[in-house]
């Protein structure tokens, strides 16, 4: 009797040990993935998917995707080191999320009162600078500086950028760039004409601040094009080349600035300079005869731009649903461009390009040829299909480098 009791105790202890070992193994089995994909399905549901390769295979969001039904997570997000960040629309919070065992979970949040996020900039390590409007009347540009590892706000406040005056009703921030202790903020002003119509000033403004004091040093103005950048939480509009020359694009087309009379242009702030280079302007609308939105740097002075086809859409009502976007390889120095042989893409604005070495992964939503990640080598010019998103996929809304390894 005593023997059997002893055996039972030993057996239970052994069972607990086995369970502990297997649970540890499960935790270590939680593999970090390199990439994440944000999918909008045909039924209106959003999914996040994580994968280690974009080079091939097929993913079905409703089978292996993480449903975002229970969280307020849309595609205007920041993705870094396995985490997803978003300024919540309905709450004054900037929230950090993580996918754990196939479920999206809130990790932490910081206060972001009266704040509508437009752009972000990663400083060293986990220091993140958020730039946005006050969401009470969109007349101020504000900032929040935080550490994302522990989710602690270091500083926040208003930037001393002149508020809209005269006929102008709101302000739009579109570019954020940091050079040592100098912060550059690109912006312009809007005039609301009615509940469904607005226009934009013909001027691109670039304000320079001393960082971290956030002291305004000067404001540069340029009328060669307007509406600098856009929301980089949704799509990218700027980059530095290998020599630290900073390039940004303007988006006066109907989907952003609504000044279609002005051309899409690329501006430059040369390395070491503190003002827009008056000698440099790459007018993209002249050769393409359309407006562009979105720009990604490849290397060696080459970049990709995403350009609309006004002969294929009627207006804003079908701008997002009609496949009409084309990708161009552009040479920043020679100011020449070449159209990529890709199917027409749909979705007005998307974070749809990841660059790794000589390769660019380009997510294309074709109405006829499916939803694929295309693999483009800008040096050899080779272009082939990679990962397919099947099932109920309607749009690949964004692809991100989730982890670097």
């Amino acid at each position: 009797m005593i023997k059997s009791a002893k055996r039972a105790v030993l057996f239970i202890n052994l069972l607990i040990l086995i369970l502990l070992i297997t649970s540890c193994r499960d935790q270590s089995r939680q593999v970090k993935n390199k990439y994440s994909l944000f999918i909008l399905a045909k039924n209106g549901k959003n999914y996040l998917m994580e994968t280690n390769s974009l080079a091939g295979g097929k993913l079905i969001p409703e089978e292996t995707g993480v449903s975002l039904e229970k969280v307020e997570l849309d595609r205007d997000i920041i993705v870094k080191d396995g985490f997803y960040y978003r300024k919540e629309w309905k709450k004054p919070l900037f929230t950090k999320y993580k996918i754990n065992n196939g479920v999206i979970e809130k990790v932490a949040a910081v206060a972001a009162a009266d704040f509508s996020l437009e752009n972000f900039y990663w400083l060293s390590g986990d220091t993140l600078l958020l730039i946005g409007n006050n969401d009470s009347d969109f007349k101020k540009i504000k900032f929040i500086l935080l550490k994302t590892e522990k989710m602690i706000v270091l500083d926040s406040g208003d930037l001393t950028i002149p508020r809209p005056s005269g006929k102008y009703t709101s302000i739009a921030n579109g570019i954020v760039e940091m050079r040592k202790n100098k912060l550059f903020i690109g912006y312009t002003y809007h005039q609301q004409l009615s509940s469904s119509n607005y226009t934009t000033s013909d001027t691109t403004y670039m304000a320079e601040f001393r960082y971290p004091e956030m002291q305004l040093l000067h404001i540069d103005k340029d009328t060669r094009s307007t509406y600098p950048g856009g929301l980089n939480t949704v799509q990218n509009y700027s980059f530095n080349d290998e020599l630290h020359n900073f390039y940004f694009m303007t988006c006066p087309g109907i989907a952003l600035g609504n000044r279609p009379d002005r051309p899409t242009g690329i501006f430059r702030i040369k390395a070491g300079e503190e003002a827009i280079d008056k000698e440099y302007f790459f007018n993209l609308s002249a050769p393409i005869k359309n407006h562009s939105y979105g720009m990604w740097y490849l290397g060696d002075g080459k970049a990709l731009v995403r350009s609309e086809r006004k002969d294929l859409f009627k207006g804003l009502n079908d701008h997002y649903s009609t496949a009409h976007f084309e990708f161009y390889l552009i040479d920043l120095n020679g100011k020449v461009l070449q159209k990529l042989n890709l199917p027409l893409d749909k979705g007005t604005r998307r974070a749809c390009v990841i660059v790794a070495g000589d390769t660019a992964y380009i997510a294309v939503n074709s109405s006829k040829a499916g939803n694929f990640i295309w693999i483009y080598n800008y040096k050899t010019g080779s272009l082939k299909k990679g990962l397919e998103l099947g099932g109920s996929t309607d749009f690949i809304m964004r692809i991100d480098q989730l982890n670097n390894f």
Partner: protein
Amino acid sequence: MKISNALIEKYHHHQCSAEEREMVEQWLFSVDDESEELQLPAREDKLLHKQMMWDDIKSVMISTAVQPQPDDKKRYSMLNWKSGIAASLLAGIIVLGGYRFYSKRNHPLPLTYITNSSTVKVKNIAYNTYTVSLGPMTKATINNLTGLIDFTGSLLISPKEDVLITFEGSNEQMMLKMGQTYVVLSGKTVNDRIIVVNERNINDLPPVIQQQLLQHFNI
């Protein structure tokens, strides 16, 4: 003016004083300013509604008239007259009550003219096939029979089944799908445009318009 059931009964039994009779007749034959619900919206056909009400009253009276005739003609013709009046009043009360019920329960008639003059609040209307939310400072004329919506301002439409809608000024019939929510904006100014976007694609709208929607609908 307060007219009780007892007073109406007294009136029909010819038991009212001259003053009471005058009060009842004034109530019966005049438009009461306090009854705001009886004010038909603009563009509503008053004659059509009048005809509908009389048809309802008539149907009650006819059904009363086809009942078996009693032996005592005089007694029953008196009863018929009384029940006719009672039926008319009853039908009238049912029709008017129904109209009030519809107005209060936000089940509008096929053609409705709605104004949301609030600068902050949203006004919600439920139809059989869809619900519509009017943003602040929005005016709309909604014809549920033809599917034509003429409006200025901002709307959110959530169809309960697939519906075909034409927005005045766009000259194009649009299929709005069940279970989705659509954002519709119209300014009605020179060079203005009507914007119809599925709520799920709201991030594709220009940020300025997204800001408007955030302020209007908190979406």
